[in-house]
């Protein structure tokens, strides 16, 4: 085994552990632990679709579905749901994240980029309605001290005619 393939195997293992843990924390509603996986200056971005083939590429001049350029934006969303005042969370839909096709690459001494695909099954017990959200993730992981943080996550939502509500827990 060359040094390079060892590196790739390590990168894959690091990315898989983080991405699968993130999915579990979202599904179980352990959002304080989930958001702590992000660096303070993390970018969380769900581009919009411009036409059948192209997504937005510049959040400063184009509208995204979601765009936060700091962890604080995600923390606000969590606070809103946990306040029990947002009707979108009364009751909160149940979700299952399924993630596969991981391709991780070490892109620097302390950075891993990982592409993956997701299906999020969303069940709304209020009206016994379910639907599936699917698309692609691109995680950028950065080493901070002896832990890896999510520095950037880009979510390309394939089925973008959105039923009723889209929030961090259901994507």
């Amino acid at each position, binding site marked *: 085994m060359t040094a390079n393939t060892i590196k790739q195997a390590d990168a894959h293992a690091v990315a898989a552990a983080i991405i699968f843990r993130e999915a579990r924390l979202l599904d179980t509603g352990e959002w304080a632990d989930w958001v702590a996986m992000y660096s303070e200056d993390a970018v969380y971005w*769900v*581009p*919009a679709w*411009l*036409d*059948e083939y192209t997504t*937005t590429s510049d*959040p*400063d*001049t*184009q*509208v*995204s*579905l*979601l*765009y936060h350029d700091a962890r604080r934006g995600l923390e*606000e*969303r969590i*606070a*809103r749901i946990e*306040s029990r*005042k*947002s*009707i*979108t969370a009364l009751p909160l839909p149940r979700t299952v994240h399924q993630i596969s096709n991981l391709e991780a690459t070490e892109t620097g001494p302390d950075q891993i980029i990982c592409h993956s695909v997701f299906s999020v099954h969303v069940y709304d017990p*209020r*009206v016994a*309605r379910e639907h599936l959200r699917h698309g692609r993730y691109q995680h950028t992981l950065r080493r901070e001290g002896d832990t890896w943080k999510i520095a950037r996550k880009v979510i390309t939502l394939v089925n*973008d*005619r*959105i*039923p*009723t*509500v*889209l*929030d961090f827990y259901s994507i």
Partner: protein
Amino acid sequence: MNAASQNHAARLREISRLIDDRPAERIFAVDRRIFTDPEVFDAELRHIFEATWNFIGLESQVARPNDFVTTHIGRHPILVMRSADGKVGAFLNTCRHRGTVVCPFKQGRQKFHVCRYHGWAYDSSGRNISVTEEASGQYPPSFSNQNHDLLPVARLGAYRGFLFASLSADVPPLEEFLGDTRAFLDLIIDQSDSGEVEFVPGASTYTFDANWKLQFENGLDYYHFATTHSSYVDILKKRNATAGPDTGFTAEPEGEQEGQGSFSFDYGHAVNWSIKRTQLYGRPLGMDPARLDAVRQRVGSTRAKWMLRQRNLTIFPNLQVIDILSAQVRTWRPLAPDKTEMVSHCLAPVGESAAARTLRIRNYEDFFNASGLASSDDNVMYEFCQTGYEATTAAPTQGYLRGVADVGHGDSAHSRELGITASEWSFGPTSFGGETNFHPGYREWRRLLQHAAGETA
């Protein structure tokens, strides 16, 4: 008139009576069935959406020759194109041969649209330029004598870049239809030095499982804000405690009385607005004092003052234009009595600074759409209402009477400032949340159904 059409007219008259509007007795009630009944829904599509002016887009969406964008009027798929020589046209997006949708894309630029089924081709002015293998088609003379071009909408008009179309020719001129709602479109358009507005790229489409009129009403409804959006208000208050000068807060002139008001107009339109000393959010026009001064010089201090106030404009039957922390254009397409598709755009004056544009975009994402912190709560609330409306044997709801005791006619202090004439107006304290501005839409709803039934409205 045959028996079937007599019966249809009678049914339309019955449906129109689901609105109980007796101004002298100060009664206004809406039967719950208008939100749930499939027969009402069919009548609305045919005799309201497909019989009056609908907003179909901005001219700037088809800025260059051969640009196109697709949309709907009621059930009808619509293709809006700018021809090679620069003329905007709107056509039924259906091939003359076998009815296929000619352009299946959202937007783009093409000189020609070729039907995928048998290859009939149209240019960007809608003209048929090819009937595939016409010479060998053994067509009768009647075919050759027929026109094969895309069918244009019956009426197409524009007001300062806002495009409207009607599938029926039996409509008032667009200027008359819009009336003094134009003053409120102007308050957005004139924020641009060049008098142009554009959609910021990145439209979004979402659905809710409820009747379209829930959105129509909610866009006119200030009463719900503090309750429905309390979780969002909490976030705003927390942010505002540490907000810097770049968040675009502005102040009302000294002596302005705080409050909420509305104007109602003919043909179903209304606008609600608020005057507040303590703002929950800033706005792009407010973050650049030099530009705001320039706008004030150009439009005068009164109109500039109104540009900085929250205004929610509804142009019946399918358009709402909101100018608050950002500006939104939203349209709805009724899919079923209990399903509606929304298309939402961020609206912007051409020529604002890059920083103002980015603030506009962030504020828009924050508030609007299925992914925003406010509109998502509205969407769920519509579904709660739809579930409740299934109690069809219950008495009509009590949601149309706030403001009825003091509804104003003729001029008001506010209408005089703007130089407009409203059919009705209302004004109350900041907790007012009047509901009389729902009435014009329902009156127009009833008028169009009665008109279709052959009655003189």
